[in-house]
């Protein structure tokens, strides 16, 4: 039991599964109490288990974004007609629109039902966004890229390198702007000033990326190793066949007039063939990973708790497209039943049943000094 709770960073994919579970659960309900509970659960787990890295501190931004989404939704209900329902709260003059804009209403009466509908709808979307934000705060995005299948390794590395370019670019923009002031600074024209900053920055970025490329090359990035021509041919054929299968399958599924045997069967066969090709492409990559993240019991607890939330809400709640908000037919307080509430609360388990993240370097240093 002690080893279970030893501080360590969990596999990033586990947090993503958990967060997606919560997000899926949010799509199943417009009940504001349930949605607020989901946000509270996500927020509690984030606070309990996030590290000190910059991405972990960005959770607040997602909360702001959520609030913004709700506000926009409600605002739109006021602007573009909100007269469904009988409880009129506000009477605004309606602006007449030309014939071709029939169906769109500008201002007019605003009903409580319509406002609440907008509020609930916005809350649902906001909750989903906040769940994704929680995943982002808990899972190191770089480690997630590293956990990609071997066949996608090169793409993953490229993305990691690209991500690390942005802070560098910001740094050199600041440096060059400061240097510009040394040369008499503000040019007369804005465009010219921009150009004087852009050229040294781009030059800098270009020479850095060349140096990085040379360094990666000499350190063995993209070593092909010895691959038989036959193996390459088989992998290529499998990948292409799989891709064609997926394309045909998707087309047939979406187009009702194509024969049905071209739809689901071809789609699934294409996916399977493609996956085999993917697997064989990954198999011949002779590359290993240093201290890969592994799935241990805590990861399973995290993932299962997320899936459980989604599963409970799938069985207990249902969004009827014809009647999204039962409580709005006759205006009443939304009611809350116990079962879905308990289901959502399963999602808070990771805050207690997982090891804490590893303390950041600075904290370790402080402790050693004390």
């Amino acid at each position: 039991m002690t080893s279970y709770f030893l501080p360590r960073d969990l596999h990033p994919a586990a947090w993503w599964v958990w967060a997606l579970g919560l997000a899926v659960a949010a799509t199943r309900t417009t009940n504001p109490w349930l949605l607020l509970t989901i946000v509270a659960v996500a927020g509690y787990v984030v606070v309990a288990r996030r590290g000190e890295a910059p991405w972990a501190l960005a959770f607040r931004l997602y909360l702001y974004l959520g609030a913004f989404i709700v506000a926009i939704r409600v605002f739109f209900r006021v602007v573009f007609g909100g007269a469904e329902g009988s409880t009129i709260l506000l009477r605004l003059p309606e602006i007449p629109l030309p014939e071709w804009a029939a169906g769109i209403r500008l201002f007019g009466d605003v009903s409580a039902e319509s406002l609440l509908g907008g509020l609930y709808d916005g809350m649902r979307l906001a909750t989903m966004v906040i769940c994704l934000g929680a995943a982002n705060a808990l899972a190191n995005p770089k480690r997630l890229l590293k956990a990609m299948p071997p066949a996608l390794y090169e793409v993953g590395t490229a993305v990691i390198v690209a991500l690390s370019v942005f802070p560098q670019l910001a740094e050199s923009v600041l440096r060059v702007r400061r240097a510009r002031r040394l040369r008499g600074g503000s040019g007369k024209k804005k465009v010219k000033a921009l150009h004087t900053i852009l050229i040294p920055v781009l030059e800098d970025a270009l020479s850095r990326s060349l140096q990085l490329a040379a360094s990666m090359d000499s350190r063995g990035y993209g070593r092909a190793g010895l691959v038989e021509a036959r193996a390459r041919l088989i992998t290529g054929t499998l990948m292409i066949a799989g891709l064609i299968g997926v394309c045909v399958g998707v087309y047939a599924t979406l187009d009702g007039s194509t024969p049905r045997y071209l739809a689901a069967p071809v789609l699934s066969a294409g996916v399977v063939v493609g996956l085999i090709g993917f697997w064989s492409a990954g198999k011949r990559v002779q590359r290993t990973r240093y201290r890969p993240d592994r799935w241990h019991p805590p990861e399973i607890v995290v993932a299962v708790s997320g899936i459980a939330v989604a599963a409970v809400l799938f069985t207990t709640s249902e969004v009827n497209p014809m009647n999204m908000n039962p409580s709005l037919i006759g205006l009443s307080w939304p009611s809350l039943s116990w079962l879905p509430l308990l289901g959502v609360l399963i999602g808070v388990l990771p805050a207690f049943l997982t090891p804490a993240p590893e303390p950041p370097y600075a904290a370790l240093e402080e402790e050693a000094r004390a």
Partner: protein
Amino acid sequence: MIELDHVSFTYHGRAEPVLSDVTLSIGEGELVLFAGRTGAGKSTLLGTINGLVPHFTGGHLEGTVSVDGVTTRSRPPREFAHLVGVVGQDPLAGFVTDTVEDELAYGMEQLGLSPQVMRRRVEETLDLLGIAELRRRALRTLSGGQQQRVAIGSVLTTHPKVLVLDEPTSALDPTAAEEVLATLARLVGDLGTTVLMAEHRMERVIPFADRMIHVPGTGGVIDGTPPEVLKDMPIAPPIVHLGRLAGWDPLPMSVRDARRRASSLALGAPPARNTSVGEELLAASGVVVRYGPKVAVREVDLTLRAGEVLAMMGRNGSGKSSLLWAVQGSGPRQGGKVTVEGKDPKTLSSAAARALVGMVPQTASDLLYLQTVAAECEAADAESGAEPGKCRELLDRLAPGIDPASHPRDLSEGQRLALVLAVQLSAAPRIMLLDEPTRGLDYTAKAALARMIASLTAEGKAIVVATHDVEFVATIADRVLVMAEGEVVSDGPTGEVLGGSPAFATQIAKILGEPWLTVEEVRSALPQEVP
């Protein structure tokens, strides 16, 4: 181990070959020092060893280069990753990942080593280089010396037979450079790795180099033991100049060596250093610069007088740059007063401030943005409100013979510095601040810079130079100011500050004791020497 057989190399679009008919054979476990001026072809020669030249750079290579029996002709550089480890000048630019541990493992991941082996080697390498306590740190937050050691560690984990280092200490302060070089010396001793190293400040490497290869820039190379090669090399460290001056044979290679023989030198009176200074040009008191909670400069007082060269020293991050920027007026300054000609440059517009105090920042090329040297000069005249042709005239005085049509990027490091200096001087400030101007300059370019500085002070300008290069400081500076943790630790005449401290003593001071700092001083005090 490494065989170069009649190797010639020409860059694309150049008529003259950089290397012509070079034949070399380097054995296992040798430490080979490559010396030569910037642009003479050292980096090119080193690049051929793992095939970056020509696979990555382009160009035309004749002859064969082979490492451990494998020629670079048949395989790209990545197939040499297990044989040759390459460390560049700027470690940060070569990092692929973002933490120390991941960076050490990166090369091994590419080679497909098993996780157990990787784990073991990472731990071994962390200990070998003395960076175990940094393992989880982000690479960007490390100091220059630490970064360079991580870069060396990251290529060592694959256990290469050859280690190629292209000026590994050029961006480091003296202490950090000693750290890195001591690490390398240990590696050669402990692991038997073949090390090929290019280094401008060769005096630090010569004591433990087995062999030296001089790349003079004519295409060929001169190969031999360090004393043999140094005997006729035009660029040489001060200790060799002293040995030549005193007629010692064989030439001394280490300070210890030279000190033993120095007792035979009959020296006259030590030279008197220039102590006469003019009127006060700048007075700063209580300057404070802080970045959030971090205090970069802590209540520093500074005065500059006409005709004076002040050298600012101290390790990286000790506040030298922040102080220079604050004094110039462009950088942040939270407290204190700066007065130049009765005005505070911070309160003036940037154009007016640079007419009072000019500055060349650490990356001088940040100031250049046009296509040709001539265009840069014209723009500078317009920006400074000087009469047309002023900047070009200054440039011709500082570094004669630069083609006006050439692109600033194509200039050598020293020429580019001269161009930026000319651009800044066109505003006619009486004070000029230079932040690390010697970075990447070879002996010749440094001598040229010293002449530029001397001609400026002769006009009554005051010059401040922030640098790590003690030998350079000894040649040019009248006064030295040492900073640590944002405070001034010592401030006094060059002879006192440099001679009195082991960290900042020049080679000559280490050999002959305090009043002697440069070979020039010894030359003038030798009675038997007829100039």
